[in-house]
């Protein structure tokens, strides 16, 4: 068994985070956090509620600005990006929100068209239609194209949100608690879909979760985020055998 505190190195990591720190008032959330994500890797960030997991991926996508540190995504420094550069980066990095964040006032089709129209304005309507149907077919919900989000179940909404994330064919997908609030069967289905997508599109993923079934199914490597720092890293099998008192409760 190999459990180490070192960050694995890779020739071409798609995400490299160094000394990341962010605080809200006097509450320090991330304190010198470090990680790398290799190309094609599925990395789970595991930690207690409120430990800063969601804050971490919001920093990666540029929704939050850290107080200190460096975040390199696809070789570009996020903390130094202006809005146009952030938009360009976001076209290559998908984000699945915990609450799905589907636009209530739009149909499923309009929800999926929205990022396409915004990032790739030169597309014809025919091309947009084809891409929408392809994304919906990938998540098995082609028949919902003209429904409103309010007409869908929780699991279907999650799949549609995933289809919206996939529609730009991102190189990296950031998942914010993808199975929270779902029943075990639906949760399993979403986890399978995530693995399927990673295999089909060769994406790299950062998955924030504390659903251990999802973690076991989707992770190639796990980072334990404790007290704002990377506490341990290793595979599911490695960490599940850990005797570390902080790590053990997650795997029991």
């Amino acid at each position: 068994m190999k459990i180490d505190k070192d960050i694995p190195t890779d020739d071409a990591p798609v995400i490299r985070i160094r000394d990341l720190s962010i605080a809200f008032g006097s509450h320090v959330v991330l304190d010198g956090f470090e990680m790398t994500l290799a190309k094609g890797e599925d990395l789970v960030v595991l930690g207690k509620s409120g430990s800063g997991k969601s804050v971490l991926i919001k920093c990666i996508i540029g929704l939050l600005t850290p107080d200190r540190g460096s975040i390199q995504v696809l070789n570009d420094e996020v903390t130094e990006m202006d809005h146009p550069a952030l938009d360009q980066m976001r076209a290559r990095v998908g984000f699945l929100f915990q609450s799905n964040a589907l636009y209530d006032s739009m149909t499923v089709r309009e929800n999926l068209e929205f990022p396409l129209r915004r990032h790739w304005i030169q597309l014809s309507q025919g091309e947009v239609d084809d891409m929408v149907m392809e994304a919906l077919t990938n998540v098995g919900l082609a028949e919902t194209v003209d429904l409103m989000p309010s007409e869908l179940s929780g699991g279907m909404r999650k799949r549609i949100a995933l289809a919206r994330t996939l529609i730009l064919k991102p190189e990296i997908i950031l998942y914010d608690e993808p199975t929270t609030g779902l029943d075990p069967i639906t949760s399993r289905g979403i986890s399978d879909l995530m693995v399927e997508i990673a295999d089909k599109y060769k994406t790299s993923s950062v998955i924030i979760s504390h659903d251990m079934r999802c973690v076991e199914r989707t992770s190639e490597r796990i980072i334990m985020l404790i007290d704002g720092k990377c506490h341990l890293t290793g595979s599911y099998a490695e960490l599940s055998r850990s005797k570390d008192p902080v790590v053990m409760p997650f795997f029991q």
Partner: protein
Amino acid sequence: MVGKASEIISSLQTLTLKIPKQTMTFLQESGGLARFSGRVFTEGLRPPFELSEFLRQCYLIGNKSLPLVGTTAFIMGMVLTIQLRPALLSYGVESELPYIVADAIIREIGPVITGLIFAGKIGSGIGAELGSMNVTEQIDAMEVSGTNPFRYLVVTRVLAATLMLPLLVLLSDAIAITGSFIGINIKGVMSFSLFTDEIFQFLDFTDVFPPLIKTFFFGFSVGIVGCYKGYTSSRGTEGVGRSANASVVIASMLIFLIDLIAVQITDLLGFN
């Protein structure tokens, strides 16, 4: 030098502690709203312009308010006429009834009542919609999708509210005057041509134009307050309810305040 600066900061902090909490909240909210309004102008003047979303909002905001504004205006015109009639009759100036009602509607009642209905219907709607989008991360999702959510959601709604309210007020004035005509004919007989002659004999540009100007400010207030409260809402679904409620209350207060200022200005300019 440093010692003096820290002394000033310390005395400012002491002063801040002495200000009652409500006053501090009021000052913070006013500052926040002023900054938010400034951002609307700076973001709104820079391309790309969200023209299709702006037109969609114009349609939604105008269309959604139409039935309520129309019904209220009709009843308002009719009731005002019926209630004023006995008083004018006792002074022997019943023939002035169309002009008096029309003047009251155009100068004051139409803009203020329509503004208040607009604040209730549209202000609360915008506050709740943006508040809900905020707590369900839809605003973040929009940003991730390569869209400036402030420009897409806020600038379009504020501009649509600013432009739609004057149009609604003009429409509501016309409907209220129609209600007045029917009100007159409930207890008497007056032809439509005589009714309009009576109105336009006395009504001039200064009766119509200044009240219309203030409705742009009413519309802007409703839009900006609704957007501000919604866009900055927090604390989950409770926060959404608070945003909707505060949007109506603050926008209504602003309407009365702007009305008061507008009356003083028109008085100074000799339009009253």
